[in-house]
């Protein structure tokens, strides 16, 4: 082929060969080279047989899952994990439509969603929390809040910073006589879900007029897009208050408030206080193949006076997979096996990468529950995790 090509150039220069002949020759040679390249690439990669695991869903755990994918690829070079952070809602939809092999969501499937995606398993993979951030000139981090006061502020019932209810919690701080500017997330998000879940548990007025959802009809305040939008609005507006993902607050050194838990302590958001919260909730976790719609760390803590050290606005982030992987189209046994091995790894060794990325490692109680769940996964009736 190469010789043909060079002689044809020679011919062209030497004998003034018709240019029109050259064009088809060049085209044929180019196609041949590309074809050879593709063929060579395929034959090179066949011995290792790359397995691709496709997932999609929540954006909150994306940095962690991305890290897991990279680290796991180092251990098993033939396994490639692709995760698209399209949001929990999108993840649940793709899981229901069986277009991904695993999904991730910040909220468990509702009863309806669970019914639509029969035999789904919930595997909590990490834990997140919501920090209350504010901008009150002269007041550093550590202002104290209770759930009742937060609900009243976000309902607009406490309009000023020096309101007696807030002053009572912070006797040593001189609060200014200024209007509170409320900032909330404008985009649908798991963060909003956790926060409104908490406020719904605390306040009946919140529960009946605003409710809990990824987006709600906010009674007061302005909406910022994403954590950065909320943080931007809070930092630019003196006397404002907002809520952001803990990771974002931590990485950007935002001031945050302490929140009163059901044991009566004022707790700072931290990996430790989230982990404690999760381990108290883990006592009542359902089996992996049952409905998790009622699972909420927030709900389980709200009346638990024993939950010392636990931060009340905390939540799991979940992997969603099918119990019988053969229900997925284009699933074969090798891929199913790779998926199960990957999941097992994430809930064990994978957890070691959490703290560096400011994610909460799973407490032992949750891991034990997850192990049982991963053991349930099968392909054509055959259990995949052995030992």
């Amino acid at each position: 082929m190469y010789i043909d090509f060079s002689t044809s150039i020679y011919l062209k220069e030497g004998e003034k060969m018709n240019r029109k002949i050259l064009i088809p020759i060049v085209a044929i040679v180019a196609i041949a080279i590309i074809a050879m390249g593709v063929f060579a690439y395929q034959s090179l990669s066949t011995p290792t047989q790359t397995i691709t695991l496709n997932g999609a869903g929540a954006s909150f755990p994306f940095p962690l899952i991305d890290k897991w994918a990279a680290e796991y690829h180092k251990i098993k070079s033939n396994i490639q994990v692709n995760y698209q952070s399209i949001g929990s809602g999108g993840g649940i939809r793709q899981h229901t439509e069986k277009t991904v092999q695993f999904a991730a969501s910040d909220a468990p499937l509702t009863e309806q969603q669970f019914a639509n995606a029969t035999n789904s398993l919930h595997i909590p993979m990490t834990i997140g929390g919501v920090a209350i951030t504010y901008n009150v000139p002269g007041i550093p981090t550590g202002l104290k809040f209770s759930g009742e006061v937060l609900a009243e502020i976000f309902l607009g019932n406490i309009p000023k910073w020096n309101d007696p209810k807030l002053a009572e919690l912070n006797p040593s701080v001189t609060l200014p006589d200024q209007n509170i500017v409320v900032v909330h997330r404008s985009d649908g998000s798991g963060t909003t879900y956790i926060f409104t879940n908490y406020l719904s548990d605390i306040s009946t007025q919140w529960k009946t007029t605003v409710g809990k959802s990824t987006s709600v009809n906010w009674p007061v305040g302005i909406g910022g897009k994403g954590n950065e939008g909320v943080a931007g609005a809070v930092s630019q507006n003196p006397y404002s208050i907002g809520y952001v993902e803990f990771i974002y607050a931590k990485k950007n050194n935002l001031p945050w408030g302490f929140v009163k838990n059901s044991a009566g302590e004022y707790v700072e958001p931290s990996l430790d206080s989230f982990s404690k919260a999760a381990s108290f909730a883990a006592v009542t976790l359902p089996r992996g193949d049952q409905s998790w719609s009622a699972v909420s760390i927030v709900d389980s803590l709200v009346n638990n006076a024993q939950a010392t050290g636990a931060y009340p606005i905390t939540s799991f982030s979940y992997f969603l997979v099918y119990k019988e992987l053969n229900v997925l189209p284009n699933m074969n046994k090798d891929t199913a096996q790779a998926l199960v091995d990957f999941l097992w790894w994430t809930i064990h060794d994978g957890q070691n990468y959490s703290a560096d990325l400011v994610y909460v490692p799973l407490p032992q109680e949750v891991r034990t529950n997850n192990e049982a769940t991963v053991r349930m996964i099968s392909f054509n009736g055959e259990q995949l995790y052995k030992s």
Partner: protein
Amino acid sequence: MKPLEVEGKQSMKTTRKPSTFIDNFSVRISKILKKFSKGDNLFKLLTAVVASSIFIILGLMVYELTIQSQLSIQRFGIEFFVGTKWDPAISQVFGALPLILGTLATSAIALLIGVPVSLGIGLALSEFSPKRFGFAVSFLVELLAAIPSVIYGLWGIFTLIPFLRNNVYLPLEAMFGFIPLFSGPVYGGGVLTAGIVLAIMIIPTVSAVSRDAFSAVPDTQREAMISLGATKWETAKTVMSYARTGVIGAIILGLGRAVGETMAVTMVIGNKFQLLPASLFDAWYTMSAIIANEFTEATYDLYVSALIEVGLALFFIALIINILARLVVWRSLRLVRGIARE
């Protein structure tokens, strides 16, 4: 290499007696090509296919949007366009009127600020500026068009909002706070900020198209004006009225961008769902912003359907604006022709 026209007469001259397989092959191909190129039929067919694909794409879009928003259309009917409540959590009621008003208002502010500036740029470039300066300006203006909208949004959040808040809005509120339009509270982000960001975003389009419209005005017009002793401003006025249709077209293009702009607006408007804002400084919401904000986490079918219906409504609003603008253009065209006839 010669361009493609080689296929024509030239090849006839140089074609040798076919001796090899490749020669045979290429002659056959060129014969086939020639057959198709007869009367440019192939080219005509090709352009027709490409042009009609617009109808197909638009048709499919309307069809798909309508199908997907069925649930919401059946549930709310006309209530969707006059409703003022957007509550995905408890009552699951969706009404889009505040969004429609927000979209129209921010676009109007954008035009109010952006169009005079753009026409000024266009006039300066086509009438007054030295060539090299004009080149530099139009290069920079076109660069503005290449900036992604999320960058405008971030710049809005971190630079424009603090600046406007401290240097413009707070003084304005202090001086004219008694007028409802300028009353507080001042957040920084809000209706006016969104309008300003949009104005900056439409300037490249409007100024570039209007410059072209001004340049297309025949020089005889200018010469006639000058010979009558007109000042530069009077000449410019004539140029503007001559190029009226082009300018209207430019404004429509700008308006189209303002109505549909999503990312930058949602980042600076404050995203507050309310029928009317308290003042120019208050937060509001637009149609495209709510879709961008809530679509990814819309968790149930009716919710998704309502968001898609917002998209459908946005589509029709854009359509109505375009039709109205077309009517204006036609009317002014007829006016011009009428004058010419007289």
